[in-house]
């Protein structure tokens, strides 16, 4: 899969697992950031180089829902997948309404991630 991905997650472990899965699948990692403020800034700066964002919901600074809103306002065609350890239903709903393409909950596995990836980027 020739896709360029921005990973946003405050957990080094999750970042590492996601990037390993993506790289093994032939994707490029544009950047990995741990906080919401940098995430929105980096997306705006590199919009054309980013095909997909995986966005954690619970982040320092600015939470994932706020970042999602900012990204979608800036680029309504942005492809964003939310990632979280079990979300409250209403937060998931809100993200999907705002424009998130899909949702990954932890614990995830490689197959689940790749299935969502191919679905979202086709």
């Amino acid at each position, binding site marked *: 899969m020739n896709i360029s991905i921005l990973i946003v997650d*405050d*957990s*080094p*472990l*999750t970042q*590492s*697992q996601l990037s*390993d899965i993506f790289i093994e699948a032939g994707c490029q990692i544009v950047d990995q950031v741990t906080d919401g403020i940098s995430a929105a800034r980096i997306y705006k700066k590199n919009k054309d180089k980013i095909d997909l964002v995986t966005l954690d919901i*619970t*982040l*320092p600074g600015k*939470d994932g829902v706020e970042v999602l809103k900012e990204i979608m306002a800036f680029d309504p065609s942005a492809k964003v997948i939310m990632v*979280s*350890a*079990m979300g409250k239903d209403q937060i998931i709903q809100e993200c999907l309404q705002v424009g998130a393409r899909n949702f990954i909950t*932890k*614990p*995830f*596995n*490689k197959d689940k991630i790749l299935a969502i990836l191919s679905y979202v980027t086709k």
Partner: protein
Amino acid sequence: MSESPDDKVYLKLFFDSSDEFIQLIENNLMTLESNPTDKELLHEVFRCIHTIKGDASLIGLERISRLAHETESVLDLIRDGDIQITGNVIDTMFEAIEFLKYHIRKESEGSTEEIDDEVVIEKLHRLKQGMDNDFTNIDSTDNPKEAAQIEIQGKDLRIKEAKVHKDNEYRFVLFNLDHMTFAISINNIQEVVDDMPSTKVPYVEDYIEGVINLRGYIVPVISLRKRLNFVGGMDKGGQIMIILKDNDRIGLKLDEVHSVETLDREKIHISEEALLGLDHAFIEGVTKKDDRLVLILKPDVLLERNKLVNHR
């Protein structure tokens, strides 16, 4: 992610990062104790524990994930304003974090030692049920919600404050059903209204009387008499106690509220004879107030939300 050569790398990442997250949690909890209204501090504690929970689940450390989850759900209720930050709450948080540290150290050392964290999980559950709060930090002038104000229609029983003197004393609303006196913690109660006609709902349990419209909220109403399997007698159509549970409102039909009392939790006992054949599951215990036998109800069990919602 099993049997991958990356497992060791992932484990190390988890141990290193969770050490940092725990450090952050401890520092923020300490500051939070003196700044209980600081939302950012609270969010930061929540975020760190949430991340530990998710990470632990990713590498199959279920016990750590579970304890982090239990801790997180208390923090979630604090964020929603359903639990107030008291010394007791902070202490329980610190205790949970200590156990998390034991668990993480145990895993990182590859030890097979068994860690029993049920005590702290039980304490977290009690906090979630609004049970383990001391109200010593509550100041009714700061936050009206904290003051546990409820209005009881038709009676002058307005509770101005929930300040009590000892850690184990709690405010309860006492009410009658037939000849018996029951009590429910005031933390669970939104208000008490006079009985009103309800709309019947088909295909629900017998004890669900119907739904009422309370200022725009559709509230299911339960007949306490039927719920407790009282034999004979009829609902006198007195009052409906509105209980807040997981942001939902549920009404409990009862004869009449008669007072708000402070009860000492230490003096609440489980006694077979006093339960008079009532289902244990609904009763937390029995205590005495002015020579009157008072049965303390567990609103959580009484309301079992799934049963209500699934059949609606």
